[in-house]
């Protein structure tokens, strides 16, 4: 009995210790930061889109958006490569995850991290640890929407 009590006490103490060590994200500053960074990323996207339409006035709106996203994805992938995006992410939290740049980061980051396991099993496999579920869920949901539209 004594031993069990002791163990329980130790576990409680340990749980307390872990709780104290977990980095606390202060709610209000982090909400503000994510708002700020997310808003800025969207404004950069709008700027790119406006520039593209300025240089190629005849481009269809949808193609211009596609180019805009490709440029943002390129920038985010590059910034992930040189290690800057992670620093932005630490500051911005959700502000760096939710935009399409976060999607790009979620593909480049594990690819880079597991590079040492080889091109196939490292880069190619790990690339989809986060993007995989996103694409699967998106494809399944949009297919279902398409099927529903077939009948209405």
């Amino acid at each position, binding site marked *: 009995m004594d031993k069990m009590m002791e163990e329980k006490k130790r576990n409680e103490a340990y749980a307390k210790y872990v709780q104290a060590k977990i980095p606390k*994200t202060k709610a209000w500053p*982090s*909400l503000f*930061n*994510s*708002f700020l960074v*997310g*808003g800025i*990323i*969207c*404004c950069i*996207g*709008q700027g790119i*889109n406006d520039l593209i339409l300025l240089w190629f006035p005849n481009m269809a709106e949808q193609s211009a*958006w596609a*180019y*805009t*996203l*490709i440029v*943002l*994805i*390129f920038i985010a992938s*590059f910034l*992930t*490569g*040189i290690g800057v995006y992670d620093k932005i992410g630490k500051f*911005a*939290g*959700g*502000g760096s*995850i*939710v*935009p*399409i740049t*976060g*999607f*790009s980061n979620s*593909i*480049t980051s594990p*690819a*880079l*991290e597991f*590079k040492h396991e080889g*091109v196939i099993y490292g880069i190619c496999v790990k*690339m989809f*640890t986060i993007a995989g*579920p*996103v*694409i699967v*869920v*998106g*494809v399944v*949901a*949009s*297919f279902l*929407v*398409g*099927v*529903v*539209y077939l009948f209405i």
Partner: protein
Amino acid sequence: MYYLWVFLIGGFICMLGQVLIIYTNITSARILVTFVIIGVLLQAFGIFDPISEFARAGINVPIIGFGASLAKGAISGVQSKGLLGAFTGGLEATAGGIVAAIFFAFVFSLIFKSKTKS
């Protein structure tokens, strides 16, 4: 002037992601999945385009826009090709972004070294 709307709406959507992180401790994969589903649903109910009209990049740059164009592709695919369109439309509409993300990730992960491992 519309940059203000872009900033406010884009910022607000990203802040919702942060709210999810703070109150549910969910991982970034789940956040992305959640927002993609929101985008698909917004498009399915025809709410996305009216919002996109004044929010522009504010809703197209967040991953909601990715979900919306998946659904939009599937819907317009169905309208032009029937059932086949449901299979081909979604990825056709988003292929640019997916290929860009995969290609750049592949190239940059070959070029650069991981900063966390060193």
